[in-house]
């Protein structure tokens, strides 16, 4: 049996609050297979982002364990990249686009020219060639999120974590970015965990969808999305399996099923 990329075992998370302990996660267990794209969905406030913080090593679970490639997680794991909803807060306004992307590479002991090459490649991948010397705030929202994605793929991550990555852009840009993520997946095959409240998006992008539900939250169900890749906005969203899956997941998130 192969080791899963990420293994979440019996994870419990409690926060102390002035009104007593807030139980957020209750014995959550799930394995993310190598190279898979997994979405975490659930009603708002259920603890999706809490689970994501645990996966990135920003917080430690009260109970249970998380392993990344067999190693127990204590801090942010090597080879982690993140894309957050709030790109304006996650990029550095005082650095150019190129510098934003190259900064995490400093630790990688790459030569200056190799770093430059990597920045160029990453920008080309997200369709932003020519913006190296711009500052993030000179770009549109969708372009800024592309910079975040370029920064993520530049480190050649083994794990990519995305928290509501497309929630702050308009609908058209959202479709473009979704397709960009599919392309990145196709080109690099990075193991990806994404939190989203958009069920259509989860179905469109994922291999598997984890539905969190309850208070404290537990894994209510894991839905396999058996729609073959490559996917496309027109064909995939018209596929009868797409409609069935989104209805099923929607029902589970709402607690109807």
């Amino acid at each position, binding site marked *: 049996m192969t080791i899963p990329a990420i293994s979440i075992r019996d994870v419990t998370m409690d926060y102390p609050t002035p009104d007593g302990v807030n139980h957020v996660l209750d014995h959550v267990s799930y394995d993310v297979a190598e190279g898979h794209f997994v979405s975490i969905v659930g009603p708002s406030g259920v603890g999706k982002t809490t689970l994501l913080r645990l996966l*990135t090593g920003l917080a430690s679970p009260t109970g249970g364990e998380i392993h990344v490639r067999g190693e127990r997680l204590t801090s*942010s794991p090597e080879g982690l990249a993140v894309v957050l909803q709030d790109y304006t807060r996650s990029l*550095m306004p005082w*650095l150019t686009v190129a510098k934003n992307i190259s*900064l995490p590479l400093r630790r990688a002991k790459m030569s200056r020219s190799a770093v430059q090459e990597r920045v160029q490649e990453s920008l080309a991948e997200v369709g932003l060639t020519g913006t190296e010397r711009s*500052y993030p705030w000179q770009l549109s929202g969708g372009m800024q999120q592309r910079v975040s994605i370029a920064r993520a793929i530049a480190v050649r991550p083994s794990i990519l974590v995305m928290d509501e990555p497309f929630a702050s852009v308009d609908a058209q840009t959202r479709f473009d970015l979704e397709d960009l993520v599919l392309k990145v997946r196709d080109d690099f095959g990075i193991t990806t965990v994404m939190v989203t409240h958009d069920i259509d998006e989860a179905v469109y992008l994922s291999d598997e969808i984890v539905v969190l539900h309850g208070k404290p939250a537990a894994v209510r169900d894991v839905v396999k999305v058996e729609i073959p890749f490559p996917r496309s906005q027109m064909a995939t969203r018209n596929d009868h399996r797409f409609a069935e899956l989104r209805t099923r997941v929607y029902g589970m998130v709402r607690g109807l099923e």
Partner: protein
Amino acid sequence: MPGIIRRIPAGVISTIIALLIWQLIGSFGPLAGDSFATASEAIAGLASLLTDSTFWAAVGQTLQMAVIGFVISIVIAVPLGLLIGLSRFSYRSTKFTFDFFKVIPPIVIIPIAILAIGPNITMGVVLVIFANVFAVAIQTAYGVRDTDPVLLETMRCYRFGILQQLLYARLPSASAQIAVAIRLAASAALIVAVVAGLVGGAPGLGNLLMRLQSGGQVEKTYGVLLALGILGILMSRLIVRGQRRIIFWSGR
């Protein structure tokens, strides 16, 4: 006509109006008389000072105290503030002490400073440092604490160390706060350098002001006031211009 007016800088018009009002009050108001100079007399006083070498020496001494004190307080306070701001504990535990010193007006320590140092340039420099170092340090520390947690968490995910977080995130994001503190410190430095001469017997424009006043030289006394105003404006202009270049992203 409106076209011509629009081409004149706004500041010039308001300055002319202010000088006119001053002239009128000085000539006809309740204060009119020998001890209150009109705008034209003050300008004449300033003009006569400009050819006076003691005036220029005093300007040099005041600027020396203000600039040296200002630079030393920034050099001490900004790194100190960065360190204090790094942890919540050090910020909280230092804040009270620093706020305490911050609200003590520098003028009240003049008696102590005269005893300890004597009425000279060094005393003026020390007063300027005392006036600024706490405020700038606290403001810097506040700016550092105020760094966006989302950015810091992003950096932690990418495994940036504490030093890199300080250099690439905390320092630049605190720079807007630091800039405000520096601007305030610059004008405070000039004021305190003058007060050091006025009250504490240190050399410079404050001292000159005292001597002119007790010598009954009304026009020149007012001339010094004008000179101080102009110096203050020049200093803050210079600093604002420098800051715009350094923190170009702020306000975006």
